[in-house]
């Protein structure tokens, strides 16, 4: 039954009961050079919070890709955060298998198995981006009330950084990132920060956001009711690559100065998108105004992505309460 019909049939004053979140994972270093998460995980592990049991939730702290973290690179052989599709998690491992595929299967045993009843209730996977995105929760669902309520909570409580919700419309089997292993999950992406360095204000914002998330989980588990409302959701529509030389495939333009740093500002047909190195502007030729994000993310050059484009819509969320009470 789809979400709209579900909402329509339900009495608007009903509170949706959801199971408590008994096990939560905070993961960092999924990309070894995204340092806010690396240092946050290290701080948590130093304070012996590897596995803290504080009624009513257990929080597990994980350094996802220790080899990449040690070398301060995104990955050593293949991008770990693309290894969590159902197909790759059930891939037969041999001597030739890239490290990250093996590691993904280990993480799936530890925090999953993905899609099963034993899976971690909530995974929060920490990331940084060179794009000017503030704080974004990136998930595969636009009707996961837990994730949407956490987003609403962060938006209300965080004063120093904008908080937004991004939705990638992939079915669970094709969901490729670590956060898809949990029953609920999201990547917590904060930028802008260059890879390989740590900015104090960004670290502090991430620390605050993780603490707010854990506080929300404890409140939820203890039976508090969270009032419904609405959240603006940015749903991924497509990505745009850089203009490239047809022979060498090397990029021939940079993101236009009018678009650079303007993540989540509406891009209209005809707006400047790229500026070639020889000085010509390339304009957006789509028919529909869309919202750009991940504008000029350094690790996406090799993936053929200059920016993503999203539609924005208001999603109504119900009041929720844990079903323990």
């Amino acid at each position, binding site marked *: 039954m789809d979400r709209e019909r579900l909402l329509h049939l339900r009495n608007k004053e009903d509170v949706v009961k959801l199971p408590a979140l008994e096990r939560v994972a905070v993961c960092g270093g999924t990309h070894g050079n995204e340092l806010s998460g690396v*240092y946050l995980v*290290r*701080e948590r592990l130093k304070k012996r919070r590897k596995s803290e049991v504080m009624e009513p939730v257990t929080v597990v702290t994980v350094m996802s890709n220790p080899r990449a973290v040690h070398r*301060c690179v995104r990955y050593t052989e293949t991008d770990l955060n693309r290894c969590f599709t159902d197909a790759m998690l059930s891939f037969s491992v041999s001597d030739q298998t890239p490290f990250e595929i093996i590691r993904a299967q280990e993480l799936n045993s530890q925090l999953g198995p993905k899609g099963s009843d034993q899976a971690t209730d909530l995974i929060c996977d920490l990331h940084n981006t*060179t794009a000017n995105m503030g704080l974004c929760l990136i998930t595969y669902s636009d009707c996961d009330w837990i994730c949407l309520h956490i987003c609403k909570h962060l938006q209300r409580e965080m004063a120093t950084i904008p908080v937004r919700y991004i939705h990638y419309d992939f079915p669970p089997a094709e969901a490729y990132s670590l956060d898809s292993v949990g029953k609920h999950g999201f990547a917590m992406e904060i930028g*802008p920060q*260059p*890879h*390989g*360095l*740590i*900015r*104090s*204000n960004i*670290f*502090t914002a991430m620390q605050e956001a993780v603490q707010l998330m854990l506080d929300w989980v404890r409140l939820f588990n203890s039976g508090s009711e969270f009032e419904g409302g609405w959240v603006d959701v940015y749903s991924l529509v497509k990505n745009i690559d850089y203009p490239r030389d047809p022979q060498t495939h*090397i*990029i021939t333009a*940079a*993101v*236009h*100065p009018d678009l*650079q740093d303007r993540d989540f500002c509406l891009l209209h047909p005809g707006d400047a998108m790229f*500026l070639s*190195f*020889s000085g010509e502007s390339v304009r957006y030729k789509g028919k529909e105004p869309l919202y750009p994000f991940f504008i*000029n993310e*350094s*690790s996406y*050059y*090799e993936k053929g992505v200059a920016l993503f484009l999203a539609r924005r819509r208001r999603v109504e969320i119900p009041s929720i309460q844990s079903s323990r009470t």
Partner: protein
Amino acid sequence: MEVVSLPVLHRMAVCGGTHGDEMTGVFLVPELERQRREKGDGIWPIALTTVLSNPRAIKECKRYVEKDLNRCFTSALLSSSITDSTPYEIQRAQELNSLLGPKDTEDAIDIICDLHNTTANMGLTVISYSFSNWVCLHLFKYLKEKVTTVPVRLMLLDIPICDAYSLESVSKYGISLEAGPQPQGVVRADIFNFMKEAVNAVMDWIKIFNSGQVIEGGELESYMVEKSIDYPRDPETQRPSAAVHPQLQDQDFCLLKPGDPMFLTFSGETVKYEGEPRHPIFINEAAYYEKGIAFHLAQKKNITIPSIQAKKD
């Protein structure tokens, strides 16, 4: 004041990709080559060689493959014996020294302009050595007048020529153009544009100089690097235990005074600066974490430069 007579400048090199992930130079050098193919050599007032310094690092989009190329140009490393186990970058440095040098000889190319990026908030910084002749300082003076979209500053390294370790020290009058802030692996159009503007301004200056006009001297403000400060580190793991303090982050070239916040530990304590008032540069450069540098400290020095004039050969 007396006008100093200097030889006409005949040959220049623009180098990019000395660090393979500093993308402005990686893309500006091929753009200059494209201009040459389209409009011919006559567009420039001087014989121009364009060089992608570290092709292997560029291919992998890394700073270097085995060793930082831009630390391989000391006289000692340039004359060291090459064996099978010699790091790639030491060999490459010797190739570049043959192509553009030899360093400290009459045959060396007149000017090297080496293009770099930094994650620090440094605008356009011209970096040169204190042994450099008036040409470098005049180039800076001209760039400061002509490039107005970003702050332009002069950073000097007080190192004798034989110990000078960077690529531009191979030429008679070498400068690095450092543009930031830009993350490694990213090319920003605004930074690309002002770097292109700066390279064009260097060419314009050379044209004016070579025409024989007297180029007026004057007073310049420079920042002479004295030392560097490392991050506080965990004594066991040697990893940084703090980040640059939010009040210092992005404040390159501003005055740091005793008592000013310098670092904020990950557990929330402030570490304050305790030295003489100095100007921090290269604050939070990603590539310097492994070199044990959070930022350099420099003293501001005023320099008087004479008027100069090219003497015809």
